[in-house]
């Protein structure tokens, strides 16, 4: 087991129903793109969730509307959590409409995150597509905080268009670093974009890493992950060292409701981060 | 003032869509047209070629307010065509189901549609602000009726359980017994309703109605009986069409039924009560007495009291049936295994009055011809007469008051326009 999947972490108070949300107060709301916001929330009382590890997710709850699985993009030891939410339905609409001082519900953290320790000693390639960057952000910080433990670090971030890039300011900071190579590309752009254009896999040939000793973390739309993982494998990265973060319909987030099954895995419990070697036979078949 | 025009295009608090047009020339009422613009739905046409077993399900869709009436009339007509007899507990269960519809439909009309007229409210929601208890009683009564429909019919609207020959499934004693507390409470509420509506202000008007209703030797009529009139008519259901005919008028999508050679007549609670009040149950009868109802009520505004008395009756009758119930050995009487061309007609008493169904079946058990005469098509002409009298009496009223008075006069008869379309805006033209 790579990460402690225990969702408990409530301190002190009597044990609540395991699937019940815990109230958190919204501290700030930042607009990332026209349909995406980043929420910073803090526990409103003594009860709070355990500190999430990079790649884990929480179930965020809008009172009376419902829950949605949202990856954690930052977690502080003080219990502050950062989630980036895209409006794709009623729940995410409600979550996106909050203002500081509002209460949202949180339960989690759930799932297995990025096996950062396993990547030590070798090169790391991080490939993010669109909203695949938020779940990878804590991984990138974790690697940078122990930079000496890794070889070369390549980050490739692709989005549909320049206006779809999230964490824009942070990306600029990362790009200035010399100990990590950060490439950004978009599928298409106007003349005002001076960066690279092309699907995320077109940046891979430029990346410098030693394939047999490389661990790759890939997160983004399923098709983008499949293509990226195949391209990495073609470059010689061992398939069992390519990790992708899957997304499926989730209701319970703890492996009890059956919705998120993908092949042999419960994405909520066994994933969302899974080995490409285990997923490849299923990713190649439609509608698994 | 030689010419005046008053318009109301859309009658409220009636089931379905209709308008009223009154033409007044030089202070004389020339024409009263109850217009039914509810679009036609052609039930008689698409019943052709359908199995006799489908008639209860299909005809129920003529009216969401009184689907049980359609199911009862069609099932009985089919059973007569096929020579089937349904009696014992199955007959009682059908009566029980009808009690449910009478309670629900009457409570709906009394509290949600009619009472606001007497108390000066546009609807029951606003009535509830000042008279919360009355509306709560009404809703509780209505719910009791619906509970009967749910247990016996599967659901309140378009029950799925009645069929030719009986039911698909009959309730257990326990299932019916579970209704007792609600019905016992409803009996008190029904009696309270009679007291409440008897205390309303009624205009002092009487009309010369020819009342037509079913008459049964022992019971207040529901599913069985012969056709009787306050003018001495007495005939078997099979002769209904010999005496009554439907005529079509250009202003309406509904056919109007008239007594051949005699004109308009009235069906519904006033008619049923006038012809059968001695067959009411004891508590219904004493409620009628206490409310000061004479054996024959000719004031259409007091129909609300008669309706309330019928609710007392229906609740009492439901409790009687519940007391005596033992489940029948089979949920329905088996229809004959083979068919021959045949015909059958039946009338049952829908909450709004007599509902006539006649079917001609072919040797495959398929419907060759269907004839349905709904209560509102029978009352339509008579409502026009009421309106003519009202307008003649009230020519000095201003448009708004007259319009309101006309709508009230129509609501007295709880017309069901959806039914009749096979009905209202008011348009008064004065010249």
């Amino acid at each position, binding site marked *: 087991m790579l990460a402690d999947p225990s969702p408990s972490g409530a301190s002190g108070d009597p044990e609540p129903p395991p699937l019940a949300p815990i109230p958190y107060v919204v501290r700030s709301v930042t607009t990332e793109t026209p349909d995406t916001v980043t929420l910073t929330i803090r526990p409103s009382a003594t009860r709070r969730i355990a500190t999430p590890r990079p790649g884990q997710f929480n179930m965020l709850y809008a009172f009376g509307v419902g829950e949605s699985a949202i990856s954690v993009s930052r977690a502080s030891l003080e219990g502050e959590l950062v989630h980036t939410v895209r409006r794709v339905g009623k729940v995410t609409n409600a979550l996106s409409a909050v203002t500081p001082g509002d209460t949202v519900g949180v339960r989690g953290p759930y799932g297995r995150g990025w096996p950062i320790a396993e990547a030590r000693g070798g090169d790391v390639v991080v490939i993010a597509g669109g909203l695949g960057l938020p779940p990878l952000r804590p991984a990138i910080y974790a690697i940078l905080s122990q930079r000496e433990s890794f070889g070369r670090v390549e980050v490739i971030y692709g*989005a549909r268009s320049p206006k779809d890039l999230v964490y824009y300011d942070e990306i600029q900071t990362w790009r200035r670093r010399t100990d990590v190579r950060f490439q950004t590309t978009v599928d298409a752009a106007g*003349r005002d974009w001076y960066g*690279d254009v092309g699907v995320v896999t077109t940046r891979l040939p430029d990346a410098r890493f030693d394939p047999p000793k490389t661990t790759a973390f890939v997160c983004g739309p399923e098709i983008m992950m499949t293509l990226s993982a195949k391209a990495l494998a073609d470059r010689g990265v061992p398939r069992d060292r390519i990790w992708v973060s899957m997304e499926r319909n989730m209701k319970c987030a703890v492996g009890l409701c059956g919705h998120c099954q993908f092949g042999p895995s419960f994405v909520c419990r066994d994933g969302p981060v899974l080995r490409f070697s285990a997923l490849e036979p299923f990713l190649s078949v439609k509608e698994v | 003032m030689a010419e005046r025009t008053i318009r109301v295009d859309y009658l409220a608090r009636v089931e379905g869509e209709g308008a009223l047009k009154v033409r007044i020339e030089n202070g004389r009422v020339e024409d009263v047209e109850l217009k039914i613009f509810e679009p036609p739905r052609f039930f008689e046409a698409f019943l052709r070629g359908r199995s006799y077993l489908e008639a209860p399900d299909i005809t129920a869709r003529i009216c969401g307010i009184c689907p049980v009436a359609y199911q009862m009339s069609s099932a009985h007509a089919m059973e007569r065509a096929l020579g089937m007899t349904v009696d014992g507990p199955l007959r009682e269960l059908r009566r029980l189901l009808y009690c449910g519809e009478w309670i629900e439909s009457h409570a709906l009309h009394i509290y949600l549609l009619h009472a606001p007229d007497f108390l000066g409210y546009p609807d029951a929601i606003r009535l509830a602000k000042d008279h919360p208890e009355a509306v709560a009683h009404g809703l509780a009564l209505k719910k009791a009726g619906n509970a009967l429909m749910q247990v016996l019919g599967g659901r309140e609207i378009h029950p799925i359980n009645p069929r030719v020959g009986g039911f698909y499934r009959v309730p257990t004693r326990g299932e019916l017994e579970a209704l007792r507390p609600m019905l016992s409470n409803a009996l008190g509420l029904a009696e309270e309703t009679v007291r409440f509506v008897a205390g309303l202000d009624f205009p002092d008007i009487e009309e010369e109605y020819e009342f037509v209703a079913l008459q049964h030797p022992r019971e207040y009529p529901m599913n069985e009986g012969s056709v009787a009139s306050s003018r001495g008519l007495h005939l078997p259901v099979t002769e209904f069409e010999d005496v009554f005919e439907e005529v079509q008028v250009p202003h309406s999508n509904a056919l109007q039924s008239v007594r051949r050679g005699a004109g308009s007549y009235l069906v519904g609670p006033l008619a049923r009560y006038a012809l059968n009040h001695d067959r009411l149950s004891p508590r219904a009868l004493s409620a009628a007495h206490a409310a000061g109802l004479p054996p024959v009520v000719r004031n259409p505004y007091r129909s609300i009291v008669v309706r309330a008395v019928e609710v007392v009756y229906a609740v009492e009758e439901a409790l009687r049936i519940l007391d005596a119930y033992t489940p029948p050995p089979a949920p329905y009487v088996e229809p004959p295994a083979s068919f021959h061309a045949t015909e059958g007609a039946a009338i049952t008493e829908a909450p709004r009055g007599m509902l006539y169904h006649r079917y001609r079946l072919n040797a495959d058990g398929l419907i060759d011809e269907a004839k349905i005469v709904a209560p509102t098509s029978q009352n339509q002409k008579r409502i026009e007469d009421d309106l003519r009298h009202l307008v003649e009496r009230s020519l000095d009223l201003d448009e708004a008051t007259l319009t309101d008075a006309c709508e009230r006069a129509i609501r007295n008869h709880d017309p069901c326009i959806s039914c009749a379309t096979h009905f209202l805006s008011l348009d008064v033209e004065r010249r």
Partner: protein
Amino acid sequence: MNAASPPSLVDEIANHPLFAGLDPKLVRAAASTAQEREFAAGDLLAREGTTADTLLLILRGKVALEVGAADRPTLTVQTVGPGEVVGWSWFVPPFRWRFDARAVKPTRAVVVNGPALRETLSRHPAWGFAFLVRFLPLIAERLENTRIQLLDIHAR
């Protein structure tokens, strides 16, 4: 390699992934009609609709492949960098550029004469086949990337 002796045109071509390992005679034939050019940021390397008679081997810098129409802003669909190539329209009729190629950074490229290369390849089928074995995958990859763009992978 040092500043004193810059690589010859032949070396540049021979070291470019498209030609690396191919018959040196083919490389020399290509070099014989080629020239090395510098482009400033904003320069057009190719213009959509005009005669395509060059194969560009990018050595340094970045080139944007742009498509546009009168009724909408110009859209960059891909950027191409060192080790990559711009242009296959010189190889297939009607020999017209299908997009604009614009340098977005100062760019250095070897410009190979298309018709001449075509002529060489047709006279030496073995060279031609070997070249196509290198060249077709590049086209296939471009098609694949276009296909992925069509999938609109970030769409919800």
